[in-house]
């Protein structure tokens, strides 16, 4: 495609959709009864950056993730990914479009091995029809081997070879956290949503996690949207930070800017009067 074509392509998309950002959240809000859990949140991601949402407990960080994952229907606002409006789609479409997520409290398939867990991550890359699978035709066999190879790359990347055939249920918390990250990577996402990647990890494991996130950004070029409490991790990996309080955005900028912002300090520590 020549650059001219690219420009024309982009302007056409712009007309059709209204957002040109890689990923954009516009005036997002949700109410549970009288509570405005998230209210008027807007931000846009640049491709290849790590963007972190911080805020005190109950600020609505995970709710934003569940809104982006379409687990809750938004009461107001729009979510754009690649010029496409996500609001109103079925939850499984998110993964098909190339957005993967992890959960704060780990939602792995406990009765399966690590390998089987990661293979589920390949679901969006399946090509076979049901009758082919029932007969396990050579095409299905080839596809399975290709999926396995893709999964092995992720296993190598996150250094999980040791646990490949272990049941997830029996593995320590820190390892499961990495497996969940691996499962999300196995989908080959373009946008990765990490819900508190360091929660429940000891300082050493948190350090590893920061290392993985930097690798994901630099080596795989995946854009990361993250919710996180641990400010040292946030400062180390984030390009930009958004601070929330009681569902509303209070500050946005580089980690250092946000950390020293008076509204943020007030939200965490309270004001003097």
């Amino acid at each position, binding site marked *: 495609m020549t650059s001219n074509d690219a420009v024309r392509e982009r302007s056409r998309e712009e007309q059709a959709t209204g957002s040109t950002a890689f990923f954009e959240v516009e005036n997002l809000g949700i109410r549970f009864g009288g509570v405005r859990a998230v209210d008027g949140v807007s931000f846009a991601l640049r491709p290849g950056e790590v963007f972190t949402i911080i805020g005190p407990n109950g600020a609505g960080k995970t709710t934003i993730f569940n809104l982006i994952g379409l687990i809750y229907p938004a009461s107001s606002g729009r979510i754009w990914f690649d010029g496409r409006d996500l609001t109103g789609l079925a*939850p499984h479409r998110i*993964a098909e479009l190339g957005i993967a997520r992890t959960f704060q409290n780990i*939602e*792995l398939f406990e009765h*399966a091995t690590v390998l*089987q867990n990661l293979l589920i991550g390949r679901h969006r890359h399946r090509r076979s029809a*049901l009758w082919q699978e029932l007969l396990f035709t050579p095409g299905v*066999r080839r596809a*399975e*081997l290709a999926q396995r190879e893709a999964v092995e790359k992720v296993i190598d990347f996150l250094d999980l070879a040791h646990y490949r055939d272990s049941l997830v249920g029996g593995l320590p918390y820190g390892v499961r956290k990495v497996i969940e990250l691996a499962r999300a990577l196995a989908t080959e996402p373009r946008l990765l949503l990490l819900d508190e990647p360091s929660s429940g990890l000891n300082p050493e494991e948190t350090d590893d996690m920061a290392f993985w996130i930097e690798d994901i950004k630099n080596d795989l070029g995946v854009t990361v949207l993250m919710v996180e409490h641990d400010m040292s991790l946030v400062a180390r990996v984030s390009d930009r930070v958004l601070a929330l309080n009681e569902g509303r955005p209070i500050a946005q900028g580089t980690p250092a800017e946000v950390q020293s912002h008076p509204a943020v300090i007030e939200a965490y520590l309270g004001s003097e009067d």
Partner: protein
Amino acid sequence: MRFIFKTDYAQDIRIAKHGGHWFWYGLLLALLVAAPAFAGEYLLTQLQFIAIYSIVGFGLMLLVGFTGQVSLGHAAFLAVGAYTEGLLQAKGVPFLISLPAAALFAGATGIIVGLPALRLKGIYLAIATLAFNVIVEEIIARWEDLTGGNAGLLVKPAVLLGQAVESPAAFYYLCLALAVMVCLGMINLLRSPTGRAFVAIRDSEISASCMGVNLAKYKTLSFGLSAAITGIAGALYAHKIAFLSPEQFGLFQSIEMLTIVILGGVGFLHGAVLGAAFIIFLPQGIAIAKDWLPPGVATSGVQAVVFGLVLVGFIIFEPLGLYGRWLKIRTYLELFPFYRRGMFRRQKAYAKSERLR
């Protein structure tokens, strides 16, 4: 203890993982193929029933064991398969056409039941499928023009490639071949993306959906496939019993079918076969035991009581069923003396996914 050295990704998707598999399953198949030569007519009939009920077990295992959806109404799909086969056979339709028709029709019914089931979980789903079972039983009893109602429907022997399958040995081979084919189909499905999606739904609906699994589509598909497989069993059942009446497909039949899956071991294909064998041989065991009981006790209620006790006992003491027991014994022997009691403790399979809702 056997150690398998893996040198190739293809090793993990093979049906037989090592020489032992080839040997033991080969031996089992050889014995089953040779059975008519040495088994008496009685044993052969039992084997026919085990093959038919194994297919039932496979069908229900797909839904209950692998997708994590309960059904208390599977006798209805057995009925749909059986009546479709019986009626088509009466019209002179050859078996090679009527069998797929029975499977398709039962599968279509399964999809229709599966659609409302998308919104239901656990005990509510069980009640909904139970209600469906009652409806189908009632329809069969009332639609006398088609089904013969409570007077019943006679079914002639199957006609396969112009030949009537009449001798016990021929019918046995038919049942065995279909059971093996269904079993292979299940194995293939479970090592493909669709089977993995089913298991993902069972373990955590929320993360299955986040991995791109369309919950509605796969749950409906699971219902449909499960019903279609049960329909195949129903067609064989029709020829085996040769006389169909609505009360054969009531709630008790459904519970018996669920018992196959639970006794055998939820989540294991082996479980379906073990459960089927158990269900078929249990009445014989009770009949033999009756001779040892005092005369006053040996009345007709004994079977239902023993049935219930065995089911409750398994759920409490051996939730992984017969196959789970075998796994434990094997692990114990392999690891001796390092086996620990808690090694097979598991969380409930479908209580977990309701956390994030």
